[in-house]
């Protein structure tokens, strides 16, 4: 499969309690079309930092990023982030309804001229992650933690990015919901796009490759 996202010589260090800590030490990293890449590693190893660097959300990180041979420098940071979309671990709902939240990305200039999904499409998407009973007019503040996590995943999936960067997408989900979320992620990748997941949980069946981040380096993990 052709490479979709490519990162070269990604470096990042930060001020820790005992001086400078190197979290990413010249990482090279590729995601091919159709791949779901899992990243694991000890807490504090820099997994979230890696996702933020890939999404250009880490101002002091250095390295070369490109997406299907287009370099990150050739577009605005907002354009890059709309194509390489990070979903932070903590689901955040803005005041308003579930519909307001799902349509929020279309209020941004970067999607000017793009058509926002219809109610029908939104309802189908909710149905797909086991949220069929949630009406679009529900106050988003009244969603449970697990429901909000799935709505925020849908919010980013519906924007149709090329790469999804997911920070523990199933951490707050029960087994059934986690399976539904995994299905959505797999379908997303099968459509010729790529996914990077940071995960602590046991391997599931959808990962194409598994990497381990420790000592500021990435290593392939053998087997499933």
């Amino acid at each position, binding site marked *: 499969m052709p490479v979709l996202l490519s990162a070269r010589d990604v470096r990042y260090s930060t001020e820790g309690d005992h001086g400078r800590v190197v979290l990413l030490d010249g990482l090279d990293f590729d995601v091919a079309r159709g791949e779901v890449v899992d990243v694991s590693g000890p807490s504090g190893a820099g997994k979230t930092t890696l996702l933020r660097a890939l999404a250009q*959300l880490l101002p002091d990180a250095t390295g070369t990023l490109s997406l299907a041979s287009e370099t990150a420098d050739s577009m605005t940071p907002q354009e890059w982030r709309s194509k390489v979309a990070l979903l932070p671990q903590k689901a955040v709902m803005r005041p308003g309804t579930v519909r307001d939240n799902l349509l929020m990305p279309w209020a941004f200039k970067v999607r000017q001229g793009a058509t926002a999904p219809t109610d029908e499409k939104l309802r189908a998407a909710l149905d797909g992650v086991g949220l069929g009973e949630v009406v679009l007019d529900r106050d988003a503040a009244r969603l449970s933690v697990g429901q909000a996590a799935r709505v925020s995943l849908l919010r980013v999936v519906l*924007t149709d990015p090329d790469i999804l960067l997911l920070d523990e997408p199933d951490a707050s989900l029960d087994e059934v919901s986690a399976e539904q979320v995994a299905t959505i992620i797999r379908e997303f990748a099968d459509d010729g796009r790529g996914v990077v997941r940071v995960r602590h949980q046991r391997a599931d069946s959808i990962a194409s490759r598994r990497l381990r981040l420790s000592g500021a380096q990435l290593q392939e993990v053998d087997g499933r």
Partner: protein
Amino acid sequence: MTADAGVVVIGWPQLVIAMLFMVFVGVLSIRLSLGLEKDLAIATARTYLQLLALGLVLRYVFDIDSPWLVVGLLLFMMAVAARIIVKRAPDAPRGLFTQSFLTMALTGFTVTFAVTGLIVQVEPWYRPQYVIPIAGMVLGNSMNGIAVALERIFADLDSRCDELLALVALGATPWEAAGPSVRSAIAAGMIPTINSMAAAGIVFIPGMMTGQVLAGVDPLAATGYQIVVMLMISAATAMGSVIAVLLAYRKRFSHDGVYLEKGRERAR
């Protein structure tokens, strides 16, 4: 101190007697263990010294009657106001003093000379008797508005830092992500002024009008000035809050639009 017939002049004996108010407050503080005696003593001493100094400086400036002196005094007042603003926003990013000073200067000069030039039409344009008191009210009120608005913008942005990350990750620009905080901060800066306009004349007699009436001016003449002053103050507060917040919010974002948390920004 001269006065028209019927106006009672406050002299040294009256100022000493007025001290009794502070003795009363001091006793209250001691009996209720408020621990404010020292602050009260310092505040009282400052009130006497600063206002007497102000009286002397104003008399001097009125006598000299020089445009340079007037503008210099205004710039000094703006610098002090900017310093007070910075002190009141401890979590503020660097460079806030310069920004606040420029905001005060823009607001102060624009609103003050709009009033003295267009409405009161003083001759010459710098006539200190008009320009300085009006600038004082403009600067004092917009300083308060700006300080409240800045406190609010930084606190609000920090409380939304998870949300700001999520919004920026979805492609939002700093303006799109910070919008709700910017609006609420500007409103917070303006609300005290709007409230005081609503209560003026019913709940209290505004300070400037009180002063003019006590000094023997006809109440209706004082009313005209007071109305102009209230409208001018609300314009100054609005202008100051808007400029200050618009300049300040962007400092919490990196050049590529990422929200920088409080601690990170200061370490840079």
